[in-house]
């Protein structure tokens, strides 16, 4: 019987890729609608940005930036596995993607202050 290997790093990379992808797809229409406020006026976009200038939005934005980095890293890993010659150190790709997500998220938090 084939049992799912839930404690294998590749499984968690797969889960992270899926969860981040679904979250980003759900966020995308909201992102486009917010930017579309500039059609109305510059002031309308500024009013939205003022509303978004609070800790709850900042945490959400940090989450989205981190999820985007996770999705990029996990996606590049999938393409490396599919298109590049098979080689050792594949788990290193997962670690690299995770570190990149933490670094980008941390820089975002430091800069948004």
């Amino acid at each position, binding site marked *: 019987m084939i049992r799912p290997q839930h404690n294998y790093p590749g499984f968690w990379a797969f889960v992270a890729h899926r969860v981040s*992808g679904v979250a980003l797809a759900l966020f995308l229409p909201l992102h486009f609608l917010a*930017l579309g406020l500039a059609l109305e006026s510059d002031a309308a976009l500024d009013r939205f940005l003022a509303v978004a200038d609070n800790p709850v939005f900042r945490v959400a934005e940090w989450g989205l930036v981190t999820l985007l980095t996770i999705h990029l890293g996990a996606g590049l890993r999938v393409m490396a596995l599919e298109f590049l010659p098979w080689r050792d150190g594949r788990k290193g790709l997962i670690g690299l993607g995770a570190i990149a997500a933490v670094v*980008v998220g941390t820089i975002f938090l430091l*800069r948004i202050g």
Partner: protein
Amino acid sequence: MTPARLYLLQRATALILAPLVLVHLGLILVAVEGGLTAAEILGRTRGSVGWGAFYGLFVVAAAIHAPIGLRNVIHEHTAWRGRSLGVAMAMLGLLLAGLGARAVIAVVAAP
């Protein structure tokens, strides 16, 4: 559309999106310092052919990539499949393309 075509489209759009996302992330980290303002965002994008092409390509690739990805997730984790799933995802792609094009026009086209 056949699964093979969807797979190829998903990988092709991923290859397009990867460098665009890298630039997007870099710009977010630069622009976010001191908070965002409409003047700062629109000052960069208004009238810029380069940013218009960048975000236009970004929207088209994302509007194809996201519905195919969601379709895979729904297909593998729920009982929903068949024509209705394909139609729903195609409509989602059109919605994303429409809203995305509207957003690009909003930030690039002169007022």
